[in-house]
């Protein structure tokens, strides 16, 4: 079954920024695009252990790891350039009543 984890209120995450969701293992990162959409992915870059919630950079609907500049599609988690070759896990996000929830299995 799928648990729904409350992450934060909508206005607690600024557009164009990311955060690591507390208490998730493996860690999940929540992202909010400049356009206001929320996405959730694995927290670590798939190339090398590095927190994308803490330090990932959003460019439109893409997520860039600041260590080696691997890029990922926020929607699918798919890698868009080397050195990443593996997709990030993605998680369903629900926004309800001004609160953001992530479906953590």
């Amino acid at each position, binding site marked *: 079954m799928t648990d729904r984890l409350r992450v934060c209120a909508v206005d607690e995450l600024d557009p164009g920024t990311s955060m690591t969701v507390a208490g998730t293992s493996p860690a999940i990162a929540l992202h909010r695009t400049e356009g206001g959409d929320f996405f959730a992915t694995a927290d670590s870059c798939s190339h090398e252990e590095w927190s994308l919630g803490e330090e990932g950079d959003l460019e439109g609907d893409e997520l860039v790891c*600041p260590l080696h*500049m691997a890029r990922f599609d926020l929607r699918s988690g798919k890698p868009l350039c*080397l050195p990443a*070759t593996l997709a990030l896990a993605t998680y369903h996000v629900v926004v309800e009543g001004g609160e953001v929830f992530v479906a953590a299995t």
Partner: protein
Amino acid sequence: MDVVKILVVGTSVAGTRTAQALRSRGFDGELVLLGEEVHLPYDRPPLSKELLAPDASDEAPLLVPRDALDALELRLELGQRATSLDPRSRVVTTDDGSEHPYDRLVVATGADARRLPGTDGLGGVHTLRTWDDARALQQALPAARSVVVVGASFIGAELASAAAARGTSVTLVEMQPVPLAHVLGPEVGGRLAAIHEESGSTLLTGVGVAALEGDAHVTGVVLTDGRRLPADLVVVGVGAVPRTEWLEGSGVVVADGVRCSEDLRAEGVDDVWAAGDVARRTHPLDGVDGRVEHWTNANEHADVVAASITGGPAPPPAPPYVWSDQYGHRIQIVGRPALGALVHVAGTLGGGDLVAAYADPTGVLVGAVVVDDPRALMRCRKAVTRRAAWTDSGLVPATA
């Protein structure tokens, strides 16, 4: 004709990533990855960093996990050094005399660490480029009492940092008045280099090496100003030379690297591409003609080459980017600081808060140096890519 066989010469980042990118882009023909080193493709950045720590692994850090490498379904021809190219018959010959035909060739032979002339065969003198180099240093460092590092750019600084972490102080000898001045200018170069003295190492600048002393094993370094430094371990980090000697006479145009078009086709012959440290082109973002010896550049080149060979869309160009880990801090550099003038600098490397911005005469950010702040680095990277004003890069708070 159909491309049925692609030969990639060079098994480091550029070559291996090219093989990966070709498969990602759907090339399903015969793929051969050939190189001089006997090791499976490994990653180089850790060699001068964590792999010099006292508890470091004695296994090479694989660039691609074994199962992912197997999944590429390529033929690895290790331990074979390419010695000549005949582009008319499309054959590469290796040092054992064997011939390797191709339909498309990718030159990814990289660069060799530059050595001090006349020091071959002298024990205790090292360079740091390959896994074998790193293994030799792993074994030499614990016993070393007097370490001299020639060159205080990134390799030299990382080596000094690794030695300091072992409690071994080193003396760095740098030809320029300030390390990295040619890349970052004297102000920022000085702020980075100060950490050596703070960490117990000695930095001598504006002086070169005249000779090394010792019969079988090095005992000292004689400087150009006549000083003599005792030494039982010397590490030379004075740049790299592109590996193009095997292309002589082939028709491939070589001038400090393989001269290439924007999509990395080698000039002078058909069906040959180049990638990584050995490839020279005009950079599609900043127009600078030259080689870029950065790890990320090799990754980018790999996909540019794969796109060109397979006829797919080229990846978006990215500004040059390099990082260095020293004394527990991470230095990140984006763009080309040398193309601009220093317009903002604050902080130090030791304080973990250095930021520096370089702009062209119109105020456009062309390069930045950031320590321990990846988010700031990424803001600068965006600004460099979009040719934004440095004042809009977020490095300094907007003034009212």
